[in-house]
């Protein structure tokens, strides 16, 4: 590879910056993402950190591309390795086309670590930073200069981005960083990477502006835009951004966003607020979600509208807090003791997060029950370009509520009145005449505790039937690929982008497939089971050890022998290439008449 005047136009690159926690890889990637987004490209970024503040391997990746992608690609175009471990850890994604920029401050890269043919630039970021600037801290700003040049960014654009990012932290810090950038550009010159002589040419194609946003922020905003005005939560990776985003924005709308003493307070305070008619949400991750189980069932039983966001991470228990997984599905669907209704929605990318959170907020209010949004660490925290949310597309529908005038017209008001649609009209506390009792005990229509068996059965049916009732309007899945194909995929959350890209790759190999991204997994929509039973075989991709999704389909009547279960739980993000390989192997076995292997636990 060499840089000359005939660089290709940048269509799809993946850049990874890797080093130790605290090295600032994320900062480099975040700024790069901003720059590319501003250049009219689409962007997807990913972080890979440990659950500690400093040290340990940490990396951040950015993919920039034209068109639509919702994951990091299988290959690394450019690796910026701040230490040797960074090269070792990422070697398997490198090939002969890859470019590696290596910080050789502590010595040269040992032989044999990178694939033959790959281009290596060695540059002592750390040494220069320490020598010239006296702070290791600046090494990533130095690195930025080389990376930017390689990727075809203009020096001026880089400087602008630095100003934008560091301005608010004061002139001194900005100046230092600009100086560091200058050092980096100078190093690039020395390495022969002059401005405009990088690997690519960037064409400013898509002039439409894009948000650069993570799933958690989209969820927060979806809630706010749907009229959500109360949020309580307790910090936990990878959900904390929901809390922090709402703490920043909700008060401007007169809302409350509060960090509570724990998750039990979080959900019960949310319930208390919801009782007043306020649209309410809480967010957490596995450990906190386990703690919330009593509250969740209570909301279902007492018919309290509540949105609960579970940003799943690798379990069980404390698990691997910063790693993605989808292993709380069972808990969302089956958690809480006793039977109660709930909806579980499964967005697939940051845009989906926004619109589904609006839906969740409306649905919770309409059906007076808990609605879960099943996120995963990648969906929660990966930052991607998204078309600006269209607020005119958003319909905010209040539930069945009674004003003081409505109540005054009634003969009788009962909080839990039986009704055709199984939804009891609701008068908020403060409404004259609407006094009522709300309880998680079994109760009569007025909310008075009752163990009368007939009442019990009716109340139970009233509550449970909401799930059947709602099916018609619960968010439908998204179908893509070759709809005539008899080979299907099912996967949720972060698998959305991976599966879409896998299908493209498979099509190139002559295997045409289709994909259903279910957006509601509870109650299970008929379309999902029909999709499975209508295929010859369906690859159900479960990011968990228990094949939770696959078994859930069986639980709901899917034929076991249609399902090829693929499970993964090593904490690594999926790359399309991996899935392509897995499917090709499976298909090859079928060709050889080995029969499919439903690795169902």
């Amino acid at each position, binding site marked *: 590879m060499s840089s000359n005047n005939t660089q290709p136009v940048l269509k799809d690159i993946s850049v990874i910056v890797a080093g130790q926690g605290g090295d600032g890889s994320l900062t480099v990637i975040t700024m790069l993402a*901003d720059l590319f*987004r501003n250049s009219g490209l689409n962007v997807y970024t990913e972080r890979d950190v440990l659950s500690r503040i400093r040290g340990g391997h940490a990396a951040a990746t950015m993919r920039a591309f034209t068109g639509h992608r919702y994951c990091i690609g299988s290959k690394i175009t450019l690796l910026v390795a701040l230490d040797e471990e960074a090269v070792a850890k990422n070697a398997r994604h490198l090939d002969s086309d890859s470019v590696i920029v290596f910080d050789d401050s502590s010595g040269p890269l040992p032989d044999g670590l990178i694939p033959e043919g790959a281009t290596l630039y060695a540059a002592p970021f750390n040494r220069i930073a320490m020598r010239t600037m006296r702070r290791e801290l600046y090494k990533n700003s130095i690195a930025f200069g080389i990376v930017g040049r390689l990727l075809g960014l203009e020096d001026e654009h880089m400087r602008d981005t630095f100003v934008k990012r560091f301005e608010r932290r004061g002139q001194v810090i900005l100046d230092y960083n600009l100086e560091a950038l200058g050092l980096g550009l100078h190093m690039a010159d020395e390495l022969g990477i002059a401005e405009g002589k990088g690997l690519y040419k960037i064409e400013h194609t898509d002039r439409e*502006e894009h948000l*650069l*946003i993570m799933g958690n*922020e989209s969820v927060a*905003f979806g809630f*706010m*835009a749907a*009229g959500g*005005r*109360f949020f*309580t939560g307790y910090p936990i990776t990878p959900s904390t951004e929901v809390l922090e985003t709402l703490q920043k924005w909700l*008060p*401007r*709308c*007169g809302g*409350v966003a*509060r960090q*509570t*003493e*724990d998750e*039990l*307070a979080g959900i*019960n*305070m*949310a*319930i*208390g*607020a919801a*009782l*007043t008619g*306020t649209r309410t949400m809480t967010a957490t991750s596995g450990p906190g979600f386990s703690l919330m189980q*009593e*509250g969740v069932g209570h909301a279902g039983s*007492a018919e309290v509208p509540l949105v609960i966001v579970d940003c799943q991470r690798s379990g069980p228990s404390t698990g691997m807090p910063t790693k993605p997984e989808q292993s709380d599905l069972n808990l969302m669907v089956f958690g809480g003791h006793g039977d109660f209704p709930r909806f579980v929605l499964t967005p697939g990318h940051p845009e989906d997060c926004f619109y589904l959170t609006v839906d969740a907020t409306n649905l919770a209010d309409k059906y007076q029950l808990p609605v879960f949004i099943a996120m995963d660490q990648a969906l929660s925290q990966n930052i991607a370009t998204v078309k*600006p949310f269209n*607020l005119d597309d958003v319909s905010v*529908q*209040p539930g069945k509520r009674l004003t003081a005038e409505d*109540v*005054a017209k*009634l*003969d009788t*008001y009962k909080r839990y009145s039986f009704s055709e649609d199984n939804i009891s009209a609701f008068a*908020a*506390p*403060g409404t*004259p*005449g*609407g*006094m*009522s*009792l*709300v*309880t998680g*005990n079994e109760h009569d229509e007025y*909310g*008075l*505790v009752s163990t009368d068996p007939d009442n019990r059965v009716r109340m139970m049916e009233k509550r449970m039937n909401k799930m059947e009732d709602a099916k018609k309007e619960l968010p439908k899945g998204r179908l893509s690929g070759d709809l005539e194909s008899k080979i299907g995929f099912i996967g949720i959350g972060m698998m959305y982008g991976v599966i879409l890209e896998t299908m493209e790759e498979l099509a190139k190999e002559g295997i045409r497939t289709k994909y259903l991204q279910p957006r509601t997994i509870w109650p299970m929509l008929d379309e999902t089971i029909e999709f499975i039973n209508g295929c010859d075989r369906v690859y159900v991709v479960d990011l968990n050890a228990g094949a939770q999704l696959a078994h859930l389909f069986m639980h709901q009547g899917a034929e076991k022998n249609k399902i090829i279960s693929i499970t993964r739980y090593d904490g690594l993000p999926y790359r399309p290439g991996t899935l392509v390989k897995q499917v090709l192997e499976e298909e090859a076995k079928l060709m050889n008449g080995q029969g499919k292997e439903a690795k169902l636990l």
Partner: protein
Amino acid sequence: MTTEPKTKTFTPARPIWCAGCGDFAVQGVLEKSLKNMGIPPHKLMFLAGIGCSGTIQNNVKCYGYHALHGRVLPASIGAKLANPDLTVIAAGGDGDGFAIGVGHLVHTFKSNPSITYIVMNNSNYGLTKGQASPTSPTGYRDNPETGMDSILLGLSFPSSTFLARGFSGSPEQLESLIMAALEHTEAGNGFAFLEVLSPCVTYYDTHREWRTKVYNVNEEEGFDPSDRANSFKRVLELKGESRIPIGLIYKGENASLEKLLLNENETFPAQQEIGHTDHRAVYDKFINSYLG
């Protein structure tokens, strides 16, 4: 004051308490105080925990809520923050408030929301048949531990603003305490904590014992309920003499949580119309902040 419409709604339940239970007096005095204060039923949100005590809200005309065991305080705070116009009263037992719920109690002392919390302390778990609670004395049903004192606990939070103890056997004094608590919270002055000694005649009949032990600090010459350190000392001394201090034991000042958290230029969360577009400008600002 809004008048209630004629709409029929739930008829307050007959208490399910055993004849002689101290909780009857608590309910009676509370109802009277609410009337005195002119708090209409529809403005009253009355939340209770789980236990014999935790059924009190069913017996009163109100917006009632039966929380999970130990969670009445977070639920009450949620309600208050979402709609500060409501009079929010929380109630429950000593098990509910001092065992499973004590973490929330501690944080309510700390955060000081304007809600009244009445703990009906019978020094045992009534509803589950008399097990020891955190206020049970050493030896009650083989309880090995020393009983705790909730007023001392409240005093240990520099932000606590109202700490009182009453006795169901002294309804007049109890009334003055409930009135004072309600005045505190109606004025938005923060958390009013009121423990009421309310004997359980069935499992642990302390009526006579408590009657002889209670000691009203407010009748004491020179007792100053605004002196936190002195109140602490006095409670300790009285306990040392096997007396149970009752009365308004501490009253101080500290900003209330709802004042600190709510945006004073905006409508309260619960009072905003759902689906309104008043905040469109904020939404646009949000979107813009994520644009290039």
